[in-house]
């Protein structure tokens, strides 16, 4: 599971962080912290679904469930069994 954490963190850093943003960690708030907005969440969800061959229902893809790398990993675990 450590690997998933790192994959998600790297992707968020690569895709969503602006040049001068502070560094982020596994528990940094992503949505409420303004790093990933609600529209961009769709592309993050799509990345996770492609990467882990899962389908996350829209009612589970909430700002709260996507609000940190740790929370995202919990969600992925649920759908990957």
């Amino acid at each position: 599971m450590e690997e998933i954490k790192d994959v998600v963190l790297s992707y968020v850093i690569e895709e969503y962080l602006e040049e001068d943003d502070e560094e982020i960690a596994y528990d940094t708030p992503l949505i409420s912290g303004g790093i990933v907005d609600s529209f961009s969440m769709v592309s993050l969800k799509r990345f996770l679904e492609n990467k882990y061959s899962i389908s996350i229902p829209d009612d589970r893809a909430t700002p709260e469930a996507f609000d940190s790398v740790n929370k995202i990993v919990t969600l992925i675990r649920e759908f990957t069994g």
Partner: protein
Amino acid sequence: MANIGAYNERIRAFDWSIAEKELDYSDGNIINIGWYCSDRICLQGKRDRVALFWEGFGGNEKQFTFNDIRVASNTIGAFLRNLGIKEEDRVCLFMERIPELYLSFLGVLKIGAIVQPLFSAFGDESLHVRLENAQTRAIITQRKHLSKVKKIVDLLPSLEHIIIVDYDDRKPLQKNEVAFSLEDAEPMDQFEIFPTKSESPSVLHYTSGTTGQPKGVKHVHYSLISQYLTTKWVLDLQEDDIYWCTADPGWVTGTSYGIIGPWSMGITQAVLNTGFSAEAWYRFIEKYNISVWYSAPTAIRSLMKAGNELVKRFDLSTLRHLASVGEPLNAEAVLWSEKVFNKPFLDSYWQTETGSIMITNFPGMKVKPGSMGKVFPGITGTVVDPKTFEPFTEPGKVGLIAFKPGWPAMMRTYWNNDEMFRKKFKKGWYLPGDRASLDSDGYFWFIGRDDDVINTGGHLVSPFEVESALLEHEAVSESAVVAKPDDVNMEVVKAFVTLKPGFEPNNELELKIMNFIRKKLSPLAMPQEIEYMDTLPKTRSGKIMRRILHAKEWGEEIGDTSTLEEDE
């Protein structure tokens, strides 16, 4: 008692001079929005009243009195003037909802320059076309958005100054860059405000159309008259209110009603500069005792999704009046807010070009859930036949919303595009581009846009802009962009593309294209879905027929396809 009093009485005896008198303004006088929102309030004895409660990421808090915002806006104005910025120069504000954004807005206006607010999530291409069109001389921004400005600065010869409000010495300043720190600058208690008149330009907001590049909507200082009175009568702000407008000042709601309206009335407002979460929003209302809340249907529907139990964990009893704008507020959302907040969200309708609220549900008025409400006093509005542009004589017919021009906040033109401005008028009516019906009680009922512009979460996205950007992706050969229905955002962007030889239509490429548009234009413009096609439907002359694709998404009849070259 609501500020508006009896609606029918207001309609009967209305004149915009009501607002002029309350603002001590007479025709020909100096009128400067920056002064009205700060200096005048201090002169009324409210210098120590809080103008702004601000909260940012990580619980960072600040507050500013009306005297603080008066001095800070003077200070920013003086800094800009020292750089050589003069009246009618365009100064872009490209910041998140940090205090400097609100204070710079007033500072730019105080020197007679034109404020050009742009949404900070815009990518470099969106920024470029808007700065180029406006021939912007200065941009005020933050470190985190600087990289986008740097990418385009060499393409913009007019852009002489890039002002960074949180510069930290980690990297040397580059071409045209200059640091400004409000905390370190010498406060300017006394300042000579530029004597703008009623028709002096004030704010330049950009909005998207079906075709062509975004258009700069030019407003003037006299817009204050409409913005003040609509704030007072529709948002019903009263002396002790704490007001929260959730809109970003990159869009017109965030300036007309997130700065000008409340501050010209001397009302305290609160701003939350964090990402959305239902819990954070409720906590903010509880913490700052918000009494009047102006939000958007997308946010309200997101709150609905978060559930009723969450609401009960917070004391939201200070909420007195709720209003909504940006897209039609569905009846379910009105009924939900009555259930959980014990009061309905009252829908309001207007747009960047109108500058102020045109149709709305007023405090005290009977609400018909799902309706847009009635016209604001002083506004002549109706629904006209889309062919003849004559008002319908019978209620219930679907046509185009139309207003008689002449209210104070009406746009004066599109920047460098008078021709497009003139096209917005037919037979003496201004047509905002929306379809609706009007019932026998004078309530308007929204139907939809009359063009291909996509309204996503209350923000307009031009399909043309997205289609053009898609063509810049190495894999895309042709593109067509339409609105797709969405439960929360009303509409989202959907793209149909054909690929160049050598590219495989797969999920990985779809994500790459989505992210390409997100960074180039903005997250709002990012297609939430991309469908690969072998060919796109076209007319015989080769024009891509969006309406076929739109009809498919909305489950509508395709209509006449006699000019179609190829169907799917």
